[in-house]
């Protein structure tokens, strides 16, 4: 095993102990990116001079000298965000010190590159990007998920051990599930959002994508600006919602998730009970309506018309479509939000976490991003928010934990959702799941990363 194959926390510990030279680690990371990135297109830009400067100025923080990557959604002092797109809608943004950049800098981390993302953050597959699609390291003909496609592909390919993404309608959790990683969507407002291009958002959060829960705890703490504690989760009360969240998923996904919950129940004395969420039937459309209209304030017909053909046809069409959404639909999405929040608040008096598959099917192909479910064949972009949108709609934290591989060898993820502010509980529960699965899924690496 090479140094870069170590988990994030072990890299940090080794450097802090003087067992690894951070300048050699940086050099190794850049060389590995050069060697492996063409196969996955995870990193869209490196900047050795800036990385060296970060290292030279790095304080002895919890991630001192550790190479990480950051999604193209976050501005850096030397590079404005491009959102995976060929053109900005409206005035181009300026470079600046975004919150995630500051957090990583102050932790002593070294940003070695900017990671790919789905164009404008408008998809859960990553197959549309001005840089070309990022590719799933488990099968490079398949989607790595989105919109944090590059961060997930980078960590799964072991280019880095930690990446900062953003999650507005599941955009950290879907890539985590598709790439066999652990991805945390924090409680709204708990992680830094400074410098984000949608400052008025009520859904988007920054968050970590890492190999396992302990690494997410470390990187998440950096983004939160606090050390996240841990505890045991014996006797945890788990709520499952009967119906399509489980029933309308591919059988292998259901089996892997159920087996993990059963193992958790046996090992920790956890209880599992059926619960219901009021307004659930509207969560898919409500989360999309809220999440995909918050950034429309700066969009004008003139700015849409100014987008050229180097912006994808889908993006140009969707922007037009969004301009036609009736205002009453947005108002009703707000009512769904109210219903769901009240329902969750009541539920979390009775259960500690909710559980269901992060995504209904493993990663689709890049050339056909539809998924086959018991109810029919759908675009992954349509189905994924049904599974993940509730957390963004309500503001609660959610995590995706790898729990198996499909018959095709593709990762599958279980999502856990907790009450506001209980991010640490999710990390504790994720670690418990890792233990009952004997770390089979979090320690596994695709063949591409085993070279």
């Amino acid at each position: 095993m090479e140094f870069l194959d170590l988990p994030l926390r072990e890299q940090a510990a080794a450097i802090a102990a003087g067992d690894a030279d951070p300048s050699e680690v940086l050099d190794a990371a850049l060389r590995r990116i050069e060697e492996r990135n063409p196969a996955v297109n995870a990193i869209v830009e490196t900047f050795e001079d800036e990385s060296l400067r970060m290292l030279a100025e790095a304080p002895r923080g919890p991630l001192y000298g550790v190479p990480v990557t950051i999604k193209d959604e976050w501005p850096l002092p030397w590079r404005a965000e491009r959102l995976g797109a060929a053109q900005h809608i409206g005035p181009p943004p300026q470079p600046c010190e975004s919150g995630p950049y500051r957090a990583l800098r102050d932790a002593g981390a070294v940003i070695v590159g900017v990671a790919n993302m789905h164009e404008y953050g408008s998809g859960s597959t990553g197959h549309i990007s001005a840089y070309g699609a990022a590719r799933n390291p488990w099968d490079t003909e398949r989607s790595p998920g989105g919109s944090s496609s590059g961060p997930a592909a980078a960590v799964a390919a072991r280019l880095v051990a930690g990446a900062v993404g953003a999650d507005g309608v599941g955009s950290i959790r879907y890539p985590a599930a598709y790439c066999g990683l652990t991805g945390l969507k924090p409680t709204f407002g708990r992680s830094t959002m400074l410098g984000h291009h949608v400052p008025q958002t009520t859904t988007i959060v920054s968050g970590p994508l890492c190999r396992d829960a302990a690494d997410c705890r470390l990187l998440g703490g950096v983004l939160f600006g606090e050390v996240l504690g841990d505890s045991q989760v014996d006797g945890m009360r788990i709520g499952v919602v009967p119906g399509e969240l489980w029933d309308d998923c591919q059988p292998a996904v259901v089996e892997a998730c159920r087996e993990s919950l059963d193992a958790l129940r046996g090992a920790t004395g956890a209880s599992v009970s059926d619960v219901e969420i009021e307004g659930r039937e509207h969560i898919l459309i409500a989360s999309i309506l809220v999440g995909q209209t918050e950034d429309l304030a700066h969009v004008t017909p003139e700015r849409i018309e100014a987008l050229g053909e180097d912006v994808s046809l889908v993006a140009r069409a969707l922007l037009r479509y969004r301009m036609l959404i009736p205002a009453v639909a947005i108002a009703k999405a707000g009512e769904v939000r109210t219903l769901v929040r009240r329902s969750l608040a009541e539920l979390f008096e009775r259960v500690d976490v909710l559980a269901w598959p992060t995504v209904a099917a493993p990663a689709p192909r890049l050339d056909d991003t539809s998924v086959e479910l018991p109810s029919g064949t759908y675009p992954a972009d349509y189905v994924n928010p049904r599974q993940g949108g509730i957390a963004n709609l309500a503001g609660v934290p959610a995590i995706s934990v790898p729990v198996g591989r499909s018959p095709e060898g593709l990762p599958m993820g279980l999502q856990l959702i907790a009450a506001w502010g209980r991010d640490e509980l999710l990390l504790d529960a994720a670690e418990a799941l890792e233990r009952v699965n004997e770390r089979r899924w979090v320690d596994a690496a695709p063949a591409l990363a085993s070279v």
Partner: protein
Amino acid sequence: MTPDSSRDYIESGLAVLGLDAGDDEIAVIQAVHAIYGPPLDALLAEGFDGILHEPGADMSEPPRTDSER
């Protein structure tokens, strides 16, 4: 909404906004609306009568109880 009526809606709606759209863009919009139209219609059909609004909703916190309003 039939494909023909959806095209009429899309084209006239965009025209009101001063937006052009080519056949390809219209086709994509129609395909997207065919998928999202039904859940959108279901949402629009809801009256949401009797729901207490959450004033000053803070997404980082649970909703305030009725006694805290």
